[in-house]
C-alpha cells in the first residue's frame, strides 16, 4: 500500500497529534509533525511530503511566511499546501469549511475529520491546468 506522506506544521501539539492519530488510523497516510515553523523547510526537505498541512498563526514565522519560503524553494514549491486557520468568518467559507485564498486552499478550524480528508485528497489530486 502506497501511503501518502503528510507533513503537519503546527505549534499546537494536541491538535497536530490528534490529526496524526486520525490520519494514520486510516492506513492511507504517513504523518510527520513539525511544531517549529522555523524548522519547517528543513523538515520538508528531509521528509519529502506529498502534501503539507500548515497552521497560520504560529510564533516566529507564521503560516504565510512558511508558505512563501516553500514557494521559493526549487523542489518544495510544487508540494501542495493546505493552510489551517482559526481566523475565518462565516462569510468566507463555503459549506465544506474551506476557503480559497488565491491559489492556496484553506480549511477552517475546527474541521471534521472527514472534511479534512476530503480537502487533503483534493489537494493531492493533480490540478487542472
Amino acid at each position, binding site marked *: 500500500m502506497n501511503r501518502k506522506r503528510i507533513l503537519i506544521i503546527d505549534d499546537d501539539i494536541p*491538535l497536530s497529534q490528534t490529526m496524526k492519530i*486520525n490520519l494514520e488510523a486510516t492506513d492511507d497516510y504517513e504523518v510527520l509533525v513539525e511544531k517549529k515553523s522555523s524548522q519547517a523547510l528543513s523538515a520538508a526537505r528531509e521528509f519529502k511530503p506529498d502534501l503539507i498541512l500548515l497552521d497560520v498563526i504560529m510564533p516566529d514565522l507564521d503560516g504565510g511566511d512558511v508558505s512563501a519560503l516553500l514557494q521559493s524553494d526549487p523542489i518544495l514549491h510544487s508540494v501542495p499546501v493546505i493552510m489551517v486557520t482559526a481566523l475565518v468568518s462565516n462569510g468566507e467559507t463555503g459549506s465544506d469549511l474551506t476557503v480559497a485564498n488565491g491559489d492556496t486552499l484553506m480549511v477552517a478550524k475546527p474541521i471534521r475529520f472527514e472534511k479534512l480528508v476530503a480537502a487533503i485528497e483534493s489537494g493531492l489530486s493533480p490540478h487542472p491546468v
Partner: protein
Amino acid sequence: MNPPFESSGIKNPEANASSGTAMRILCIEDNDGDFALVKEHLLEAVFDHKPEVIRAVSLKDAITHLSPDSADRSEFDVILLDLSLPDSFGPETLDRVDEAAVHVPIIILSGNEDHDLAVKMVKRGAQDYLPKYFLSGDLLLRSILYALERQRSRLEMSSLNNRLQEATHELKTTQMQLIQAEKLDSLGRLAAGVAHEVKNPLATIQMGVDFFRTKAEELGNPYDIMVIYMQEAIENADAIIRGMVDYSRSDDLELKTCNLNGAVLKAIRMVRHEVLKQNVRIKKEMRVALPAVRIDEAKMVQVFINILMNSIQAMKGCDGERVITVKTFCGKLKTIDRDLGRRDYDRLRVEDLAVVLEIRDLGPGITEDRLNRVFEPFFTTKPTGEGTGLGLSVAKNIVDLHRGYFQVSNVEDPKGLRVQIFLKARELTRGPMKRQEEQLHEEIEIQKHKP
C-alpha cells in the same frame, strides 16, 4: 494674527481714529438744532483730521446711506443715532440701524437721561448712550474712540469664536472617526486572539470525537448519543466565535472590488480648492493597468484627502516649487514589517502582489525622532489650531482595517516627505493579461519599523 476686519470685508475703524484719513460719521438726527449742536461739538473735538459728518434725517434716509447699493456704505466709521425719528421710535430704531450697518459702532444721542434705557440699549448692541445736553467735544471724541476700540475687540472676539467653533467641530468629527476606527481595530484584535485560543482546543476535541465516532456507533446507545452531543457542543462554540470574527470584520467597512486610481482621483478632485489656493501642482503618475483592490472607497478617499491636505500644508512655507507627486503602481513585496498584535491570515506578506499609492511632497519632511510618533493620536507637527493630531492615526487605522500597510518616510532628491499605502492586490483588471504580468515584476519594499 490678521485683524478680523480684512476677512469680514469692512475697513479697520482704528485706522482713522488716530491717524490716516479723516473719519466719516453718519449722524442720524431729524432735529436741525440738535444736528447743528452735534456737528459743532464734533468740529471742536481734537481729531487728527477733521471728521466728515454726513446727516440722515430719518430711518429711511439712514438706511439708504447704509444700503449695499450706496457707494459709501462701508465707509462710515461710526454712527451717532437719535432714537426718536419721524419714521421710527425707541429701541426699534437701534435694531434697524444695527441691522443695516452690522459692523459699524453706534452711539446713541438721547434727549433725556434714562439710565434703564441706556443699559438696555447697550445690551442691545449700542456702544454708548449719551444725553445731548451733556455733550462736549471731548466727551464725544472719547466716546467715539472707546466705541471703535470696543467694536474692534468685539469683532476680533467673534472671529476667534468662529474659529474656535470650527476647530471644535473638526476635533469632534475626527475624534468620532478615531473612536470608531479604534473600536473596530481593537475588536478585530480581540476577536482574532479569542478565535485562535479557543478554536485550537476545539479542533483537538473535534479530532477526538471523530476518532471515537466509528467505535461509538458500533457500541450503540449511549456511546453514539454521547458523541452526537459532543459534536453539537463543538459546533455551537464554533458558531459563537465565528459570529465574533464576522462582527469585527464587516461591521463598518463596505468593501468593494475596484481600481485604486478611481479613489485617488476622487480625493484629488476634493482637495482641488486648496490646491489652487496654495498654488500647488499635483503631478499624477498613475499606472493604468492596476490590479483591483478590495476597499471601502468612501473611507479610503478620506484617508487620501487627509494625506494630500497634510502635504499641501507642509509646503505652505516653502519658497520653491510646490509639487505633490501622486503615484500608483504595483509589485511584489520583498520585505514586510509585521504587526505582531494583528493576527490575520489575510495580511500582506512577502511575495504578495501589492498595489501601492505613493504621495510625495517637497515640504520639509519630519525629523527622525518625530517620525515614529506620527501615528500617535493627538501628535501633530503643525502649529496649535492647524491640526488636531488625529488625522494620521485615523488614516492608519482605516488602512489597518483593510489589512494594508501605511508607511511614512523622509526622502531625498528631491527632499520631501513620502507617504505610501500598500494594499493587497485582488485580481488583475481586464486587459491584456500578459502585459499586466510583465509590468508586475517590480519589486517593492516595506521598511522595517524602528523600535
